[in-house]
């Protein structure tokens, strides 16, 4: 049987067909349990609402946190939460990896002609997480209306860029965590600290963080680039003292870095699993 050249359009079509078949089956299987799907959806919506409620409570005690008003922080929360929820929808189930390792399902991935990571990502699609996306999207919309934004091509570009990069950064975090799971078979607690901790951190103004947190969530796991820094640039609001206002435009650099870290972590983890040392 003729094998299309790697990178050829025919090969690309074949690859897409395989992923489409798997993902469509996941969606169908969730849709077949309607009652449970609806409950999951509502549950995810509540989790998002409670997370927003937390911020609202903080602002009922004060007008500003780190130089940000409630309207401004809604923009930060909306942007980062939407990016995170979308990443969660696509890659959140990567933290099932230890289950796949223990059940031996991961070995089955090696027997199929697709990359193991691509199979892990497409092994599930958590549609219920759409509920979370709704909370983020609503907060983002409200934030955009309440704030006095100078609507230009640049503003729209910055928002789209921030959302796309935020999505990439959070997806990369999930993959980084999965790579580390190969070493820490019961290490989900540890990796959750930066995956979910990072999500939480991204909804807060880093101007109130201590320097150590700035390094962790501004540089190592660069979630500050998902929402806070682009929003600071957008609103011309005070960012972190000593950092330039245009830093929000550097989200793609942060995203690239996060992808690099994820690729290393995943390759390293896979090498370890196959017993090639590491």
């Amino acid at each position, binding site marked *: *049987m003729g*094998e299309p050249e790697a990178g050829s359009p025919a090969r690309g079509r*074949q690859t897409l*067909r*395989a992923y*489409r*078949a*798997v993902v469509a*089956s996941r969606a*169908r*299987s969730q849709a077949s349990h309607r009652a449970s799907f609806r409950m999951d959806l509502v549950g995810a919506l509540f989790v998002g609402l409670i997370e927003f409620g937390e911020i609202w409570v903080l602002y009922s005690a004060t007008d500003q946190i780190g130089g940000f008003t409630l309207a401004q922080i809604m923009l930060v929360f909306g942007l980062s939460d939407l990016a995170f929820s979308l990443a969660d929808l696509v890659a959140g189930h990567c933290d099932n990896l230890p289950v796949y390792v223990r*059940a*031996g*399902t991961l*070995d*089955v991935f*090696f*027997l*199929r*002609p*697709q*990359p193991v990571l691509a199979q892990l990502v497409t092994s599930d699609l958590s549609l219920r997480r759409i509920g979370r996306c709704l909370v983020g999207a609503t907060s983002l919309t409200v934030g955009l209306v309440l704030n006095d934004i100078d609507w230009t091509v640049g503003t729209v570009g910055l928002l789209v860029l921030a959302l796309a990069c935020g999505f990439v950064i959070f997806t990369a975090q999930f993959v980084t965590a999965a790579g580390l799971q190969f070493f820490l078979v019961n290490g989900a607690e540890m990796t959750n600290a930066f995956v979910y901790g990072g999500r939480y951190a991204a909804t807060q103004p880093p101007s109130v963080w201590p320097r150590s947190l700035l390094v962790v969530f501004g540089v190592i796991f660069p979630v500050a680039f998902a929402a806070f820094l682009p929003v600071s640039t957008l609103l011309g609001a005070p960012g972190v003292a000593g950092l330039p206002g245009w830093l929000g435009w550097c989200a793609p650099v942060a995203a690239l870095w996060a992808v690099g870290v994820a690729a290393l972590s995943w390759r390293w983890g896979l090498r370890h699993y*196959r*017993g*090639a040392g590491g």
Partner: protein
Amino acid sequence: MNVIETEGLTRVFTGRPERGNRLRRSRHVAVDDLDLTVEAGESVGYIGANGAGKSTTIKMLVGILVPTSGTVTTMGLHPLKQRRVLARRIGVVFGQRSQLWWDLPVRESFSILAAIHSLTAADERARTAELVEMLEMGEFLATPVRQLSLGQRMRAEVAAALLHRPDLVILDEPTIGLDVLSKQRLREFLVAQRREHGTTLLLTTHDMGDVERLCDRVLVVDHGRLAFDGTLDGLARTVGARRELVVDLAAASPDLVDVDGAEHVRSDSGGLRQRLAFDPQRTTAARVLAAISERAEVLDLSIEEPDIEDVVREIYRATR
């Protein structure tokens, strides 16, 4: 062409012990300097005790595990560097781990796998129909995998592994836990696949029946080393594969030690049930039974095939 070729294949597992000195790493040699050649069209039984290194070997053949040293070539490909090309040419069934989607009907698992292996729509239809007919899966094709019986699921697993017409099929314990009828059906199917497509088979099993009916060559591994490589007849000659006749007697009797051509193995329930071993090359079950009947009244009887564990143990004893 050689379908499988290994040279000095070795796999060592290191780990920290649960107890004792945790700084010193424990070292376990799972596969030890294995030289193996399997030619196209062969059907090879790969047997050995639990922990002898069978699964580790298979994992290195298909590119899941990296060898500690030595080389391995499968279908002329490097299993690690060319894993994805190799995956299109081999089919693997791990008896203990499913490659079907547990919440989907069997039919849908097949069509996802067809997409994964880029079968054309026409090819998918034809091949699925062929497998459904040969493995008699029609009645449960629309059933979700999680609701299948073990026998049904195993047939579906084998079909899933063979959907893309692989040249080499590797089966790890394919008949474990199956009833006699399901085993028989599966074996007949595999024999037919070999006949029609020239498929090469490599299987690990604990069932001597699998080896007898499916394999023309047997490999026995012991502690990661090859202890026997030859035909089934050669194996039987080496270990003298004996059958056992188990008889239930009407009354407790003294041990039947002097039956011609048979050797008394054990008595249970004070002599009510006795086991006698005999060599099928030298005598028959009927002659042994006749000799017993002269001494005691036989109520019931059964004949037991040699246990693969016993065969392996004999080989181990002979080669040490």
